[in-house]
């Protein structure tokens, strides 16, 4: 079981240390490395789609 709270705190700590400018690159690295560690491309892609929700850019309903 992943201790989600520990992960949550560690991410917040890294983001505070790195600052806003480095945050996108850091999170992009995290996403790639975690996806790689997961070893399941289908699940990784589903997580990406899930995380892209509710962030402003709405998916095209025609798609």
């Amino acid at each position, binding site marked *: 079981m992943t201790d989600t709270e520990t992960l949550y705190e560690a991410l917040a700590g890294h983001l505070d240390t790195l600052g806003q400018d480095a945050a*996108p*690159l850091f999170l992009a*690295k995290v*996403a*790639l*490395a975690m996806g*790689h560690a997961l070893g399941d491309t289908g699940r990784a892609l589903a997580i990406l789609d899930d995380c892209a929700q509710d962030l402003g850019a709405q998916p095209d309903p025609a798609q």
Partner: protein
Amino acid sequence: MRPAGRSELDSLYFTYPHFDAPAPDAPRTDPAPVVIVGAGPVGMTAALELARHGQRCVLIDAKDTFNDGSRAICIARASYHILDRVGAIAPFLEKSLPWTMGRSFYRGRQVLEFSMPDSPNDKYRPMYNIEQQYIEQYLWDAIAREPLIETRWQTRLEAIEAGAGGAVLTLADPHGRYDLPARWVLAADGARSTVRQMLGLRLRGRNFEGRYVIADVRMQHDYPTIRRALFDPACRPGGTVLIHRQPDDIWRIDYQLRDGESEAEAISEENVRASVTAVLEDIGHSGPWDLEWWSIYSANTLALDDYRHGPVVFIGDSAHIVPIFGVRGLNNGMADAQNIGWKLALVLSGQAGEGLLDSYTPERRGATLDVFANASKSARFMTPPSFGWSLMRDAALSLALHHPWAGELANPRQMAPYTYDQSPITAPDAGGPGGPKPGAMMSDVALGDGFLSDQMGPWFTLLWIGEAPALTHPLLKVVALPAEGTVARAWGAAPGSAWLIRPDLHVAGRWAKAEPAAILAFLDALLERRA
């Protein structure tokens, strides 16, 4: 372009020849079976391939010498096989620098070292660096020995009329203007093809944003022939730099222009010198250097919808423009030239129907589209087109500092010849005997006294494992290979297995339990295709 005070042909290491126009009284208007427009490396390769198969051609070029500058410098293994087949390979092997390896750096630290497939079974190395002037010189030396090729320098195409049974070219040289009828025309006149424009044909596709300056410098620099890619280097923050070694102590430096950087300013001598100085500092070169030549390009993927227009066939850059990261411009052009060369020779000699030519566009345009797919991936990595691509590229490179799996995203994977498995003249694969698949370029095998590729006949070759049947066809050479021999082992093939190899070393078909009559019927059907 060259430094102030030096003309376009004033090279530090190469003496450009001067070619006269045909003599005033030379015959000019006798109909030609084939006219090749453009005596660059692609046009010259096509002329040599036709001549190898006994066919005459007239090769015309508007210039009085070779192309200026080093241009295409990376020649792939498959192209060396083409040069081998047309009898021009010896000086290339003497001059060029073979290489197998590339290294990528991110902010000064190495993130990837890749090797291209290579083994003692390969007659040639995966890649060779050589300046294009030498490529043209060595091809020209072979053409000068060849009585079937008539070259007309300083001869410009002024008009072309193409009909069902051939074309008439209006040509002009210093002695006048004349019409030359031709049964076939090969347009090898480059990215700005006059033939293409005169026929009203357009390339379609897209441009990438990335623009690069390529600069050649001469310097004593101690580094092996390994392609270096510098991502986000100190000398060019946010940009990408490529470095290649060439013969004669010439080094190629490609660097990306920044967004909004003006092309006109970027190619001023002063700015090129400043950019090169910064790159050389970055790679630790502190000795003297001379600026030799420079140029600019952008990464485009553009192609004609159909490479043939009646009697006119487009080969090389006239048919397709690809980003240079894939080193597929000239290499694909040479494959075009060979592909149409042997097919046209068969049609001209009456040994094949014109329908054979219908396989040219699907095979070679297919190869171009494959390059587009790969080159688009490369280009997105080399010159990310947007915020998202740029961020993920940097994330991959940053991870690659410690994780080799991420470095693989920077691997250009650019080297494999295209497989014609969808071609109308490739036999469907009915569960083959192992070894190279239908449509693929034949893999080579080292034999005691040379290589399997040396055993090929001028036209088609049937490789047969075990005792070969008595099988005769005017265009077929049968090569029997021992049942327990090197090839049988390398390809895991049982006795009775057979591969039909085309003149360009691609596999036309393979059979696990070969029936001689079926193979001959397949070959005849391939040749007798009607238009």
